[in-house]
């Protein structure tokens, strides 16, 4: 299995997984196969010390107090990391999950903000993840702020954006400067390509490295045990990527 070439999704899984090292508990929301796989992979690497809650899973979800427990648990400081996406994401880390072209009568309506307007504030390490990296998504300024990237200092906010991971590269977020900084570019892509496809300004050091490939140990974990685990919640994803069924 580990002889197969590294697929782009596996590179993303490796990047996201690395951002969870040393944490106690990561939660993964709905419609998040890659973050879910990353979380389960890091759980394996940690020898089970990382607790993983995957919404939609039975095995990896121990909540027993209904829909509110994820949010209460986060508010209690018991969730270290969470993943959020965005129909639009801007350079200050604001995200739009609501719509485009006017509000409330949006011409293009997204599903809605889900728990973002809460979890973005209370989870210390929120990782923004969106595979599509275009100027349609990475905009100068989101049309509707489902949740802001930063807040004034008097606002209670133990949480916020930690990084942005896309199909082109990886950015860190600097909360005090309210800006992204390009950390790495995925193999086969360039800084210029990222600039061309990003509607906002970001910090870009000289000589941005290429995103590292996952090492063999991680690949073995992902393609092995974790492929079977994630298949419980995302059977089509697991089958397509790993040829795996629920284990």
């Amino acid at each position: 299995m580990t002889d197969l070439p590294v697929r782009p999704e596996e590179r993303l899984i490796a990047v996201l997984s690395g951002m969870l090292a040393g944490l106690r508990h990561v939660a993964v929301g709905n419609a998040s196969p890659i973050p879910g796989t990353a979380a389960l992979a890091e759980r394996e690497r940690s020898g089970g010390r990382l607790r993983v809650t995957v919404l939609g899973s039975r095995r990896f979800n121990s909540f027993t107090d209904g829909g509110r427990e994820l949010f209460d648990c986060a508010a209690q400081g018991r969730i270290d990391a969470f993943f959020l996406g965005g129909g639009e994401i801007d350079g200050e880390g604001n995200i739009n999950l609501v719509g485009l072209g006017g509000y409330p009568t949006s011409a293009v309506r997204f599903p809605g903000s889900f728990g973002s307007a809460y979890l973005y504030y209370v989870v210390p390490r929120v990782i923004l993840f969106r595979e599509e990296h275009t100027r349609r998504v990475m905009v100068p300024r989101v049309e509707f702020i489902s949740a802001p990237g930063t807040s004034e200092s008097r606002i209670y906010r133990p949480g916020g954006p930690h990084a942005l991971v896309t199909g082109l590269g990886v950015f860190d977020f600097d909360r005090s400067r309210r800006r992204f900084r390009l950390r790495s570019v995925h193999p086969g892509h360039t800084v210029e390509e990222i600039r061309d496809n990003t509607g906002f300004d970001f910090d870009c050091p000289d000589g941005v490295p290429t995103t590292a490939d996952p090492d063999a140990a991680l690949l073995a974990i992902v393609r092995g045990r974790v492929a079977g685990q994630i298949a419980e919640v995302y059977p089509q994803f697991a089958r397509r990527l790993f040829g795996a069924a629920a284990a």
Partner: protein
Amino acid sequence: MANKGLISLDELVGQIGDGAMLAVPPDYSGVAMAATVSLIRRGVRRLHLVAVPTSGLQAEWLIGGGCVSTLEAAAITLGEFGPAPCFAEGIRAGAFVMKDSTCPAVHAALQAAEKGVPFMPLRGLIGSDILKHRHDWQVIDNPFSAQDPIVLLPAIKPDFALFHALLGDRHGNVWIGRRRELMTMAHAAAASLVTVERIYDGDLLADETMAAGCLPGLYVQSLAHVPRGAWPLGFADEYALDADEVRRYLQRARSPDGFRSYIADWDRPGSHDVVAAE
């Protein structure tokens, strides 16, 4: 059970009048789809629909049926099936008042109603455009601290909670298991209307293990026995989402006529094998 006992599906939804505030669960938590179709066919109007905290096919169909005048939700999503067409079109046309929320805000506002308090505080939200557009929410300074603004959400007090559950008994007790948002909804609502997959012989509260996962009949106004009552959505370990049926809906919903005929023709599998009222 507060009053009506075990009744038919049409009698159950017959209690939901025009203008009612109706709370419904998310797609994974037991959605009373058969009841929803019955409600649309009856032509209910001006519902204030509260998704706890999100909805999918149910909100989509109620909107398509012209039943909704206000929608409060953290999201409306058909998941992998893409945009919900009647919801998207209703938003474009301003066909209903959209009250965008965030998941924990819906839960907290229902807990306020459950506890009989006028409001509940909630962290987060400040700086979000959700808050900017929710003129029914307020920001106060936390009286226990200096310079600490916090949002207060007014209680959401639904007239009805409507959902589908696995088991109900003849005392009106309903087994909901881990799906405790159904309990909060039911406590918050003036009355709960429940369809159940199966009737449990005996008293669900008589066994402590079952009782731990029960909504007591105290909150349940009436209950109808509706096998496959969540179809075409999936339900617990009983049946999976019927993706073909959802795709069939999406095809027919491309025109208003198509939507109407889909709802008129809709028939859940096996529904003729069962006497709904017993």
